[in-house]
């Protein structure tokens, strides 16, 4: 015996580890043991191999790496004795996974063991195979497993069945071989084999549709009969669980029936009797019974059916809902969500109970109930429901508030019949939980406010009142500041009072005070302060007598360390000092924001079963630019029906905004469905993947300064003017500039639609005074859906561009692959160019042409420049 080998047995090692008081001690003990095991392996010690492996298993469970033990497993498996083999296989399953190459070495041992005379060893091998076989192993050993499916011993058969499941999952092609055997398994008496056989059939149906057909035709009857037998069977001590014989088998059979019945009226017909029987006869005072009922209800919901069974199912769910056990209620809420799609009426009856569940103490139940409630809301019950939810918002706890707020906001927006109700509710939500409100929500609110011109006075007064009471809600402060700035005169002069309002006298001084508070508070963040500065500028024109005071406030920020604020205060100060004449023209009332272009935003977590239409948050033309608040899966979930055209109304609107004519243009305040502005959707796609976080304040000033470089001084000022008349930062004008280029016709060349054979004309994707992007197309042989694009970038300005980065995004029906660029420095004046290869695969080749949104970022003259645009004019048949 090796003096270095560990003399301790497994128990002692475990005891030693348990006795450790600190993690460091434990690590020391484990390290010592590992060293001992390693030396023992090197010595090729036969006696203690299985003990070593057991220790290794324990150590691995604690979380330490144990890959040095893998070969030990193999040696143990290859040895003759049963205990060794047992431990070897166990170790194999725990320590290895299917991706390791070591596994290939086991294949031979497995094959031998599968043919062994001792059935326990065969069982072992099947078990191991079933748990971790890889695709190659599956292919090699599939014939053996098939043979074993008909073995005499039920133990082996059931294991072989489960093994087959794994095999067909790994290698779906082999599924056909198993269909017949699986069908025969369904006629078994032994419960173990039956349950595994049922599972095998279920998986076969999932994998191959011909299996599904086969089973539907041949086996539905048999299955129904089996289920009936089980339901009616007398007490059997082996399989009884709290009075019900083998509930697991019940459930599996119901699952398989569900798969077979889904979408097929014929099969569903045959099942209705037995489903009704199960639903009515199962006792529901035990958990096992409830489990069966739950599965039964799920099956009823999924198969094609008449109303009778459905009513039964919903009644059962209703009973579940009033059960005191949390688990049952949770499960019922889950199911009801699915039931709502089929029969909303019935679920409405339980609305009160569901509302109670929203206030339950258990977090899981609350979440489910809220989701369900969200689905149940319709025009009739929205008002009282929202009222209740807002009341609950006040008392709910922090983690839940976020969810709740998001849901309330989306509901309010969806069902807002009158603007005044909408504004009221939103104000309440903002005062309560403003900090949880997402950006796009209050953007939308501002859009609505600006559209409701008769409500301006009411709104600003309400906001002022709310602002006085709850100043810690950041978004409320922002909205209030914007409104006060915009409609300050209405506030002071009590314009447009509605009957329901209480009179309130607000002097100009108060209004300015309010905005000053917003600036001075140290908890205000950058956006709020920036908005407050703009609001002050507007107020200075609306209340000329207070100009001095306002100037004083603005000047205080001249030395602010944040670039955005400093820039604003300096510029506004100049305006106040020197340019009194057109100050008023600058800060005239905002043109009404076009609701139609502001396409709807996606609400908070929508249940996946019911997804309403939406695009991702768009670039609010004069609000704070959105980016990455919407979750990524939502963004990528573009429907393939997106029309990739920039909404022309948006284009005109922006043009008007930036044009010389700054008078408010009466925009079509239409309540028409916002066109799916997929341009904006794609824009968000890119913003998620941006390397530089788009800081709302800072990048705007960067873009502003860089665009100022390019433009003439007068245009410079105009750019500034439009900037200051916008309430927040100006990512959008910079974005609008390339869009304007597109609209001005200076953009990409005309769509070339002549195609001769495989030749595609190259495309000037984008051309401006500073940059040209050309795309050269080619198709791969034999794959018409894939297009290879070679993009060439040429620098047309006189500055060198560094850190050149090209990004592209495509909608869902396209796949894009970008190769690395040839370099990321673009010499000036067209002296050289950068090329980059892209590969686009069009899954809707022939039906839709390519569309792509690109973003180009580079550095020039120590300033960062960002350009984005959409390219729509790809040749048609790419």
């Amino acid at each position, binding site marked *: 015996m090796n003096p270095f080998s560990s003399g301790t047995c497994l128990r002692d090692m475990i005891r030693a580890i348990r006795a450790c008081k600190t993690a460091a001690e434990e690590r020391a003990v484990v390290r010592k043991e590992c060293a001992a095991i390693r030396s023992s392996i090197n010595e090729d010690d036969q006696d203690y191999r299985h003990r070593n492996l057991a220790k290794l298993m324990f150590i691995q469970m604690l979380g330490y790496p144990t890959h040095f033990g893998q070969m030990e497993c193999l040696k143990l498996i290859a040895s003759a004795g049963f205990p060794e083999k047992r431990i070897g296989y166990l170790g194999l399953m725990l320590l290895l996974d299917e991706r390791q190459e070591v596994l290939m070495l086991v294949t031979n041992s497995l094959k031998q063991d599968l043919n062994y005379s001792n059935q326990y060893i065969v069982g072992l091998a099947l078990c191991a195979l079933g*748990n971790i076989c890889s695709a190659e192993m599956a292919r090699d050993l599939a014939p053996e497993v098939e043979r074993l499916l008909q073995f005499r011993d039920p133990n082996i058969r059931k294991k072989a069945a489960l093994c087959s499941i794994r095999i067909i999952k790994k290698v779906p092609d082999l599924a056909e071989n198993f269909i017949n055997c699986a069908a025969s398994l369904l006629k078994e008496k032994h419960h173990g084999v039956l*349950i595994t056989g049922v599972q095998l059939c279920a998986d076969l149906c999932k994998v191959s549709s011909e299996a599904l057909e086969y089973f539907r035709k041949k086996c539905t009857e048999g299955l129904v009969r089996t289920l009936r037998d089980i339901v009616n069977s007398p007490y059997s001590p082996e399989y009884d669980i709290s009075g019900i014989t083998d509930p697991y088998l019940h459930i599996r059979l119901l699952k398989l029936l569900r798969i077979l019945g889904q979408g097929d009226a014929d099969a569903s017909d045959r099942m209705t009797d037995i489903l009704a029987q199960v639903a009515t006869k199962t006792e529901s005072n035990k958990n096992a019974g409830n489990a069966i009922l739950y599965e039964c209800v799920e099956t009823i919901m999924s198969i094609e059916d008449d109303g009778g069974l459905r009513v039964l199912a919903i009644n059962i769910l209703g009973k579940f809902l009033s059960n005191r056990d949390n688990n049952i209620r949770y*499960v019922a809420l889950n199911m009801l969500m699915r039931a709502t799609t089929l029969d909303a009426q019935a679920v409405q009856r339980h609305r009160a109970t569901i509302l109670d569940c929203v206030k339950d103490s258990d977090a899981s139940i609350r979440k489910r109930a809220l989701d369900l409630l969200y689905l149940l809301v319709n025009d009739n019950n929205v008002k009282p429901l929202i009222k209740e939810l807002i009341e609950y918002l006040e008392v709910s706890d922090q983690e839940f508030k976020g969810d709740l707020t998001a849901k309330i906001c989306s509901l309010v927006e969806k069902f807002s019949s009158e603007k005044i109700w909408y504004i009221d509710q939103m104000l309440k939500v903002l005062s309560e939980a403003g900090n949880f409100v997402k950006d796009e929500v209050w953007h939308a609110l501002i859009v609505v406010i600006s559209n409701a011109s008769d409500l301006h006075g009411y709104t600003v007064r309400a906001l002022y009142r709310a602002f006085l009471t709850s100043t810690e809600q950041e978004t409320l402060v922002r909205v209030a500041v914007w409104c006060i700035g915009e409609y300050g005169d209405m506030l002071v002069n009590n314009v447009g009072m509605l009957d329901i309002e209480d009179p309130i006298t607000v002097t100009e001084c108060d209004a300015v005070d309010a905005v000053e508070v917003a600036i001075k508070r140290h908890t205000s963040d950058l956006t709020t302060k920036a908005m407050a500065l703009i609001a002050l500028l507007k107020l200075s024109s609306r209340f000329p007598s207070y100009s001095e005071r306002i100037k004083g406030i603005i000047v205080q920020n001249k030395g602010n360390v944040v670039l955005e604020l400093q820039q604003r205060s300096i510029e506004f100060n100049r305006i106040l000092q020197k340019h009194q004449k057109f100050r008023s023209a600058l800060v005239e009332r905002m043109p009404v924001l076009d609701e139609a272009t502001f396409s709807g935003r996606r609400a908070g977590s929508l249940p996946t079963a019911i997804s309403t239409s939406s695009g991702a948050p768009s670039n609010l033309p004069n609000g704070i630019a959105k980016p990455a608040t919407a979750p990524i899966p939502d963004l990528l979930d573009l429907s393939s029906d997106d029309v990739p055209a920039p909404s022309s109304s948006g284009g005109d609107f922006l043009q008007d905004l930036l044009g010389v004519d700054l008078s408010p243009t009466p925009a079509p305040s239409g309540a028409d469905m916002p066109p799916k502005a997929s341009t904006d959707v794609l824009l968000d796609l890119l913003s998620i993947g941006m390397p530089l976080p788009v800081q709302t304040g800072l990048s705007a000033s960067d873009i502003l300064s860089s665009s100022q470089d390019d433009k003439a001084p007068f245009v410079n000022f105009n750019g500034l003017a439009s900037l200051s008349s916008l309430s927040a930062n100006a990512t959008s004008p910079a974005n609008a500039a390339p869009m304007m280029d597109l609209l001005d016709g200076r953009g990409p060349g005309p769509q070339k639609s002549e195609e001769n054979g495989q030749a595609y004309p190259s495309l000037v994707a984008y051309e401006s005074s500073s940059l040209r992007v050309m795309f050269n197309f080619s198709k791969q042989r034999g794959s018409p859906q894939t297009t290879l694009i070679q993009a060439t970038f040429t620098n047309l300005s006189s500055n060198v561009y560094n850190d050149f980065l090209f990004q592209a995004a495509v909608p869902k029906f396209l796949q894009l692959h970008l190769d690395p660029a040839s370099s990321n420095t673009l010499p000036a004046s067209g002296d050289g160019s950068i090329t980059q290869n892209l590969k686009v695969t069009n899954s809707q080749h022939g039906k839709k042409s390519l569309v792509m949104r690109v973003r180009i970022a580079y550095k020039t003259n120590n300033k960062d420049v960002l350009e984005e645009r959409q390219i729509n004019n790809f040749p048609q048949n790419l």
Partner: protein
Amino acid sequence: MGIRFILMVNKQGQTRLAQYYEWLTLEERRALEGEIVRKCLARNEQQCSFVEHRNYKIVYRRYASLFFLVGVDNDENELAILEFIHLLVETMDRHFGNVCELDIMFHLEKAHFMLEEMVMNGSIVETSKANILSPIQLMDKAS
């Protein structure tokens, strides 16, 4: 896939048994165990036994000082899994006789054997205690 993993964790958060039916690296496992255990241990008696975590559900149950956690797919019947946990405990109880945490710790391989007889590749194989325990009893007699 059904069941993704089965864990037995004590009240201090130490893992006593871990069986995974899908491959995760060691770091992932530790991270996963840490997160889930924290969530489950923090819940009190009144709360629901089902926790949603990422894209799957965890069904858990507490027996004395040991928590049994089973991670399942979203389409699995949670109540059935709850029953399964109970069946597992009863089976171990019958074999070890009044099973406690120490039994599982010191006879880890036996606990694994039992679990293997019951669940394979994420699906429930055998639910009869007699059938599950017979090979294990045979093996004990043989060795």
